């Protein structure tokens, strides 16, 4: 396997423009001869599918939900970053670039991040033109808020429903092209395998979730925009359907998987309430603009929050990180919460929680202002916990939220498999070892609206259109394997459900590969996961048949892939013998307990090649070179 990032030469601020000029073009009349498959209709997939269709390509788009509008992006709350500098507070493309590289703990590719910051401004323009109702000031101009890891206000938002509004914008653009017959929309249709012909991605195998029909789809290129793999942990803030299947199937077909151990644990989620818990709910990071985080100073202080006087409270983020305070980046805020809970100072029935307190802001601004800013989040908190956050502080605890790792891609967002492009959370490209808040929406839309529409043409220009049909033997083989797998699931007739295996797998990952990791814990996980997987394949029970809607069967397929993928995740975590961003290895910390990077040995991307389940994956390294932001210890003190 050869990894060539194809980073253009020249100064960082002109790379993208020059590169666009040098990319091959396809004339408008020829574009319609090419067909592109887009798997996923979240921000990344919907924006790509719509934009490619507008350019004239024929597009087939796929999602497993009943409508493209329900992709997980819909749930994003807080906002989207862009270097508009509307507040005149010193923001710039360079500063957004700098913050993202630093926030990612120097484990992202500079050139990609710079381009992201550049196109961020176009995204806001595009979305406003689509009718996205961003928050505005009384003068009628766009409003901004602050997010973690930044000292400027560059986050655009639509109350606590920014993802919804951005996705509806992209969905509507996509719907327009479906109506124009430029996009064929395949709903409730799950990709179960990738088809390679002569090493190039030329199609996929899908299952229609209503009829159970297995189909072959051929195209000139395949785009995966299938989201992140946070649900490997079972409990996460992701929607229930989020999964790693599409990316993992591509990995098994030879696509490199980069930095799987970079997972983000979000500091502000509603704590677990009981064993029935099916998912965790995020309370947007934007709340940290007005909420103060604290725990009692004394271990085991069981007084109600309101009865604990100021001198007995420890506002630990403000104390430890005075210049960023409650807006310290996510990895740092999460670890700090774990630390105080480990010390026995956690709050709530299980002791796994910290307070997020709005009392002062309510006093300063009035509750109507807080309601206008966060009303829907406060309601959601109240519905889930039965407590009123206007009256007493919220209880929050970290939860798995986002995955920085993903399929390896070059500067063109193409994987090492020619013709396979990967966008959005599914790729690894821009956030290094830690993503800053409000940057995932930015990246998904950058990839889909402003990057892949250019770069895919360069690949397609070298291809003969419609060169491959679904009659090719590779399609038959992939289809047969998919059918086999489904009939195996149905034939096992064991005594445990896919959900129960998933819960157990999630607990192993959370305990050993969660907020902090150690060689011994990871080795333990690597011992337990294969054993659990073996039990899965012996003792799984999938009721019903493959010939109609069967949610247990869908679940089994996803859990089966998580079972294999979890091992890759732990393997990567074990190999990366340093702490960086969301990856915290207990062995590598400073005397003050801060993450300790090892730049001499680990300033690289680890991209893994599948070598069969019985052998460890093979590591390929892409060195990371920092020419613009000098490698430095990341400090938020």
């Amino acid at each position, binding site marked *: 396997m050869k990894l060539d990032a194809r980073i253009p030469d020249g100064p960082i601020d002109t790379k993208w423009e020059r590169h666009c000029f040098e990319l091959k073009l396809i004339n408008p009349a020829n574009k319609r001869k090419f067909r592109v498959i887009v798997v996923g209709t979240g921000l990344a997939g919907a924006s790509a599918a719509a*934009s490619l269709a507008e350019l004239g390509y024929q597009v087939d788009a796929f999602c497993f939900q009943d409508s493209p509008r329900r992709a997980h992006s*819909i749930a994003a709350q807080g906002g989207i970053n862009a270097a508009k500098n509307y507040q005149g507070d010193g923001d710039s493309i360079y500063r957004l670039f700098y913050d993202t590289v630093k926030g990612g703990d120097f484990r992202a590719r500079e050139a990609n991040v710079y381009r992201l910051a550049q196109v961020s401004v176009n995204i806001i323009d595009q979305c406003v033109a689509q*009718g996205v*109702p961003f928050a505005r000031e009384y003068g009628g101009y766009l409003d901004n808020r602050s997010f973690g890891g930044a000292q400027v206000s560059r986050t655009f938002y639509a109350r606590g429903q920014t993802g919804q509004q951005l996705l509806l914008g992209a969905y509507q653009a996509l719907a327009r092209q479906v109506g124009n017959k430029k996009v064929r929309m395949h709903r409730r249709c799950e990709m179960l395998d990738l088809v390679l012909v002569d090493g190039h991605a030329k199609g996929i195998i899908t299952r229609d979730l209503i009829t159970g029909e297995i189909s072959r789809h051929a195209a000139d290129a395949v785009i995966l925009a299938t989201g992140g793999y946070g649900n490997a942990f079972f409990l996460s803030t992701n929607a229930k359907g989020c999964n790693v299947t599409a990316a993992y199937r591509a990995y098994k077909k030879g696509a490199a998987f980069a930095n799987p151990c970079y997972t983000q644990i979000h500091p502000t989620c509603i704590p677990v309430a009981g064993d*029935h818990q099916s998912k965790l709910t995020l309370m947007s990071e934007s709340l940290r603009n007005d909420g103060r985080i604290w725990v009692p100073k004394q271990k085991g202080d069981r007084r109600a929050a309101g009865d604990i006087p100021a001198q007995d409270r420890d506002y630990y983020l403000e104390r430890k990180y005075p210049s960023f305070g409650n807006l310290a980046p996510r990895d740092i805020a999460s670890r700090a919460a774990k630390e105080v809970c480990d010390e026995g100072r956690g709050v709530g029935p299980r002791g796994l929680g910290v307070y997020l307190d709005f009392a002062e802001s309510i006093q300063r601004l009035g509750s109507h202002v807080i309601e206008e800013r966060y009303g829907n989040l406060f309601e959601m908190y109240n519905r889930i916990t*039965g407590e009123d956050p206007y009256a007493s502080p919220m209880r929050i605890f970290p939860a798995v939220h986002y995955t920085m790792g993903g399929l390896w891609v070059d500067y063109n967002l193409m994987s090492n498999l020619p013709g396979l492009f990967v966008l959005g959370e599914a790729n690894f490209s821009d956030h290094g070892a830690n993503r800053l808040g409000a940057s995932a929406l930015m990246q998904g839309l950058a990839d889909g609206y402003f990057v892949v529409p250019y770069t895919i043409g360069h690949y397609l220009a070298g291809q003969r259109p419609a060169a491959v049909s679904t009659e090719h033997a590779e399609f038959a083989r992939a289809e047969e394997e998919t059918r086999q797998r489904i009939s195996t699931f149905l034939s096992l007739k064991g005594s445990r459900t896919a959900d129960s295996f998933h819960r157990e797998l999630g607990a192993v990952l959370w305990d050993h590969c969660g907020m902090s990791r150690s060689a011994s814990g990871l080795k333990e996980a690597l011992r337990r996961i294969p054993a659990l997987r073996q039990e899965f394949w012996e003792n799984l029970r999938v009721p019903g048949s493959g010939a109609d809607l069967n949610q247990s069967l869908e679940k089994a397929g996803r859990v089966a892939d998580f079972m294999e993928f979890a091992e890759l995740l732990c393997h990567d975590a074990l190999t990366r013998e340093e702490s960086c961003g969301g990856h915290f290895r207990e062995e590598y910390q400073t005397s003050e307990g801060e993450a300790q990077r090892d730049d001499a040995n680990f300033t690289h991307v680890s991209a893994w090649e599948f070598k069969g389940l019985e052998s460890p994956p093979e590591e390929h390294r892409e060195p990371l070179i920092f020419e613009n932001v000098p490698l430095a210890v990341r400090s938020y003190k």
Partner: protein
Amino acid sequence: MRLKLHVWRQRGPADAGQMVSYDMPDVSPDMSFLEMLDVLNERLTLEGEEPIAFDHDCREGICGACGLVINGIAHGPTRGTTTCQLHMRSFKDGDEIWIEPWRARAFPVIKDLVVDRKSFDRVIESGGFISVNTGSAPEANILSVAKDSADQAFEYAACIGCGACVAACKNASAMLFVGAKVSHLASLPQGRVEAGRRARAMVSAMDAEGFGSCTNQFECEAVCPKDISVRAIAKMNREYLRAGLLESES
């Protein structure tokens, strides 16, 4: 607490379907409604029965995937709340709960509690957008938009497309859904250009899908988990009529 559930079971579109009863001996008030169904499904699977099919994804009240008629009310007893955000503390020990799918001609049942809502997508495809290609947008702050208009647009844009409005309406009308989209886009200067054409296209697509006409009883507003106001319907009618007038004048 102990509950008795009566759940609509239907093997497929051709099956007649029936209510089936289940005992739930140990429900925690902290569970969400769907978590209670998860527990039941785990049990049914191990007992060799097929679990109950229902749609869900985000479980945060935003994707619009979930939707059950609970004791005769779309999304259940708590106002402004999706099924997934309904928690069992809204019920009490000994309660009986009837659980059914959305019922509407334009939403045929696929299986158990799962219905087909593609008709909603087709209505949006007919005109529920602003026609702007990627890359052709002007600088965002070139046009100021009154805060009131932006806020109003947001109120309508908050629709999650769940279909509760249709399920609650005797005529299975989709006026609130369509009105919300028409009003969202018509409230913004960017959306004014196509406002009339959009209203007419969406209304005729809505009719073609088999959604009924408005009963003026506003059941839709009462069950909308996002509290979208029926003013959306009036606004849509206005846009529709205005477009008709302009057309007859020209």
